[in-house]
């Protein structure tokens, strides 16, 4: 009973005597700061790659120094099987997923919000259609759908990321819809309607801006992790970026033969980059979620 009571009432406002720092779990702050470091690193590396401010040329072959270990010959992360600088290739590899990932996120968030509002705020027939549509999209394993697209269209990475974005729409839709249904139980939406606010003011200001922006931020970070995973998997499978242009996925793939011969570093370096980056986005999303959403509801989990 007590828990129920708290859920109902602390959700109305963010006013509380307890300061932000006291009620926040320190572990979540660690998560979020690690995530922010990763996000900044990715953005900075993206900019470095765009303007070509790189320590080495990513294609430059150095047969004198093949499979150099980290630090050898001035290469901070070593060199790959053709003597190319691994750090440079990792930085350039970010080009493969950064903009396409942003595209996937935007599609998921924009359409997810649109359908979520339609289904949650107006409900009725919209709700039915959107639920069936979501179930339909969820029926396909994402990678299988993308392979179907590849067989049919031979699309480039941007079109593939459109598909990734579309497959992420149902998640965002259901979160936004659930939140709106929860908000509808409280009476401030009714009150807003009663004082004559127009639907679009209620939706954009009172629902989306005041109550849904954290959901959207969190979904954006998780969506980026998803996009990275998808892009690296596809390049690993040989459908994404092709050699000699570096991508984290094809770096793991091309290093894998050497891995079995005992040269672990060649494919482990890009794999660790994938691991640390995706971990960063996950922790950022979950940490933000814990700090902004759960604590606000007064539940200690």
């Amino acid at each position, binding site marked *: 009973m007590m828990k129920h009571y708290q859920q109902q009432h602390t959700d109305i406002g963010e006013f509380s005597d307890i300061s932000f720092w006291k009620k926040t779990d320190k*572990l979540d702050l660690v998560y979020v700061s690690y995530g922010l470091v990763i996000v900044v690193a990715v953005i900075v590396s993206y900019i470095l790659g765009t303007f070509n401010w790189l320590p080495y040329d990513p294609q430059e072959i150095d047969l004198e120094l093949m499979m150099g270990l980290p630090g050898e010959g001035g290469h901070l992360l070593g060199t790959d099987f053709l003597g190319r600088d691994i750090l440079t290739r990792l930085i350039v590899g970010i080009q493969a997923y950064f903009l396409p990932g942003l595209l996937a996120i935007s599609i998921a968030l924009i359409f997810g919000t649109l359908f979520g509002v339609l289904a949650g705020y107006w409900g009725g027939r919209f709700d039915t259609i959107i639920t069936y549509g979501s179930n339909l999209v969820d029926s396909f394993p994402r990678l299988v759908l993308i392979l179907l697209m590849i067989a049919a269209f031979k699309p480039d990475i941007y079109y593939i990321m459109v598909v990734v974005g579309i497959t992420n729409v149902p998640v965002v839709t259901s979160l936004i819809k659930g939140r709106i249904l929860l908000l509808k139980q409280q009476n401030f939406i009714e009150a807003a309607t009663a004082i004559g606010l127009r639907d679009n003011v209620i939706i954009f200001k009172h629902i989306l801006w005041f109550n849904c922006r954290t959901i959207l931020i969190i979904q954006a970070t998780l969506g980026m992790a998803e996009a990275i995973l998808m892009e690296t998997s596809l390049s690993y499978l040989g459908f994404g970026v092709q050699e000699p242009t570096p991508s984290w996925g094809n770096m793991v793939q091309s290093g894998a033969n050497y891995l079995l011969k005992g040269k672990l570093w060649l494919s482990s370096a890009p794999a660790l980059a994938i691991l640390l980056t995706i971990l960063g986005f996950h922790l950022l999303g979950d940490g933000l979620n814990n700090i902004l959403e759960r604590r606000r509801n007064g539940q200690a989990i």
Partner: protein
Amino acid sequence: MKLSAIRPVALLLARELIITALLLLGVSLVVFIVLYLSPGDPFSQLIATQQATGPSQPKTSDALQTFSAFQQYLIWLTHLLQGDFGASLRTGLPVLNEIVRVGINTLYLTIGSMLVTLLVAVPVALSSARRGMTMLNWPFTMFAYIISALPVFWLGYVVIYIFLHKFNLFPIIFGFSNNQKLSWLYFLLPIFVLGIGNGTLSEIVRYLREEMGRVLAEDYIRIARAKGASIWKHAFKEGFLLPVTEIIAAKIPFILGGAVVVEQVFNWPGMGRMAWQAAQDRDYPVIMGIAIMAALIVRCGSLLQRVVSIVVNPRASRT
């Protein structure tokens, strides 16, 4: 059980069946639209191969051009419903037989890895739901985060490397081994890798923990505790059976997607490798068949989940 109690359940089940059928129709429509819009008119080729293997009268792909899109869809769908998925452009073999042949391997892989995931996730989730966050499950939470961020293909190679070098076992090729006693190992490695590395582990733990925690806080559990009855018995249906079936049904697509990558790493001859090959060769009939099969598996999984939840709690399932 009285008839009056069975009837609403039967109605709900019938409703779920109809919804599943409609969604599968939608799936076929999506696949049709993708193939229909793709350049080079692969769709006519596809129907031509269907009729080459199928029971009905042959039509050339030129004759098909005269049909409207909707008629083409209907022709294709009737063949599909008769189990005629056409023939592979590469090998010329009927697609459905091929999918069924290799699908068994994928089934072993996915079901096995699901079991591995649950064997890890359930004990952790249950113990932390009961005792709350302790120092013991903090490292596990961190471990689960790292595991779900790990690229599964790299994990596969590392596991192969460890077994190759540390235990001197090779070659790692499915179904082939010069040491018969160890063939089970080659079978289990991919299952283990997919089960750990499919990226759903931390989510499953979190979901089960929350659901179990929610049920354990309910009044009827407190009453059961007060009168000394078994808590697990009371919490089993709501706190364990329903969440587990729900999360399995929701994660089937992810496991199938992960299988594509893991099968590639381990040379496992399943649907995923077939899909990869088909996408390489632009072998439309095969990739179409696999997409439809995968969607069928996903929908059947979620139908089963709905059946379980209706039977367990008919009242809550009514909409």
